[in-house]
């Protein structure tokens, strides 16, 4: 089991000697990530060139690029981005700190699991956005409103997946450790946490994806800055270049968060436990 995991990450291992080959291999990796996007932009360019659409329907990649350069150089983007990032960061931290312990507490007891499962599904069914009009009445058109919506969205998948992870651990693992005299703390650190970690990370990844989306949606309606405000504001004035540029920034930012934060955690958990197919 662990052998498979150990073999899994040769690409990520630091090369002892940086030869010409290693550099070439690394560049090849970069191209591999960019390649699908290059194809996509080419298709977009072709459609735009052939269809000859008016500016308020579709603009060329070049136009979008120019607009983005302009917005970045003026510092407009930095302001919208920092607003969004701050909210998602705070929301994620709060959701993990509260959500994971609840997930374990609920997952460890079948009565608690049964009683909270339906409630969580109910909360999941009523999207944070549906509560937005009411939350706006409470907190006004402010960042607090957006934050409340994002936490609501993020915390449910985290609790839910922690619970599933805790319940999926075969009970005899815990019993085996206990019969050997392990304490409750040892059980948590050696059985429950590692056993549930892949599932928690799945929850975090899902939660981030949807929390990010709830953030954008809330920003569209609250209109107090942030990337959702950027693209929704551009719609009213028919600026397709701003909309597409904003979407690219939203996607890229999420990609960076996913690659630099969530993915390394996933590699440490799922790959280490050796369950992933090569």
């Amino acid at each position, binding site marked *: 089991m662990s052998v498979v995991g150990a073999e899994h990450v040769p690409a990520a291992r630091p090369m002892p000697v940086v030869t010409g080959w290693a550099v070439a291999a690394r560049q090849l990796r970069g191209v*591999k*990530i*960019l*390649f*699908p*996007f290059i194809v996509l932009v080419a298709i977009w360019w072709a459609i735009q060139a052939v269809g000859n659409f008016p500016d*308020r*329907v579709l603009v060329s990649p070049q136009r979008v690029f120019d607009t983005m350069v302009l917005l970045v150089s003026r510092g407009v983007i930095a302001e919208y981005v920092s607003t969004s990032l701050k909210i998602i960061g705070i929301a994620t931290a709060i959701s993990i700190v509260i959500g994971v312990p609840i997930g374990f507490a609920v997952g460890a*007891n*079948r*009565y608690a699991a*049964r*009683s*909270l*499962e*339906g*409630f969580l*599904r*109910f909360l*999941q*069914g*009523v*999207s944070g956005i*549906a*509560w*937005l*009009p*009411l939350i*706006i*009445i*409470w907190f006004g058109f402010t960042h607090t409103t957006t934050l409340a919506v994002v936490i609501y969205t993020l915390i449910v*998948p985290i609790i839910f997946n922690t619970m599933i992870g805790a*319940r999926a651990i*075969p*009970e005899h693992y*815990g019993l085996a450790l206990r019969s050997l005299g392990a304490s409750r703390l040892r059980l948590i650190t050696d059985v429950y946490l590692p056993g549930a970690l892949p599932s928690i990370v*799945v929850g975090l990844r*899902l939660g981030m994806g*949807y929390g990010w*989306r709830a953030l*954008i*949606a809330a920003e*569209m*309606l609250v209109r107090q800055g942030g990337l959702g405000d950027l*693209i*929704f504001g551009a*719609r009213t004035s*028919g600026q*397709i270049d701003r*909309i*597409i540029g904003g*979407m690219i920034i939203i*996607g890229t*930012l*999420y*990609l960076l968060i*996913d*690659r630099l934060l969530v993915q390394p955690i996933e590699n440490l958990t799922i790959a280490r436990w050796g369950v*992933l*197919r090569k």
Partner: protein
Amino acid sequence: MSVQASPIATTSSTRRALDRLTWTIAPGVPFVIVLLIWIAATDILQPSKETLPPVSDVLWSIKELALSGQLATNVVASLYRLLLGSILGIITGLIGGVIVGLNRKLAESLNPIVVFFNAISGIVWLPLMITWLGIGTALAVFLIWNTVFFIVFQNAALGVQLVPEVYEQSVRALGGGRWHTMRTVILPGALPYILTGVRTGLGFGWRALIAAELVGAATGLGTMIFDAAEYHRSDIIVAGCLIIGVIAIAMDRWLLLPIERRTVRRWGLVADAEKER
């Protein structure tokens, strides 16, 4: 697990009956607690009806909405969009996910683009799609498809990847063909993940729909809530949210749970875990 949690540990029949009762009423407990807090809050704090409508107001507005036929119109409009978008999302997501899950190289090369479009799936398309598709059903269906697809896709791919290769190899070594392996090993093995994906996908598709309807539709539950907000009718907002939640639970209970039971439990994956506890 612990002694109190295990009904088998005690021989007393009253204790067993009590356990069974707790087990039956457990799902209702959080709802009752929230309801009590709500009643207490409106009673003690006496907030304005706009800030927190009393329970009676919300019940009354549910009755009003139901009698006027407004509720039925909006629910049907929302469900129709959800059905259309989800079916498209599940079919495309399942096919894509299984193909990608079976092919590690393909999964690696597609991953950047999947992550990218996952990050902007759903509501992020709203401004662009309002321009392209206009306000209405096509817009909502697109947003739901977009949301459901990525969840089903990622779960199906993960499920297929997590099937131990040993199983596949043994069936192959005994002479199982590609299709046979797929049908007897890969798909059953990945099924719990696929169903989790469908179940989660529908839950999230439902919320994507509500978000889309807030600005991108003329009917539907989201529109109903948003219209109510303009007149500061918090009772209708809360009523709408409750109805949205009830429909989500009903779908889960009567549609998705039975499917999960019939498939996953048959393979002994969930049933065993529950028997043990």
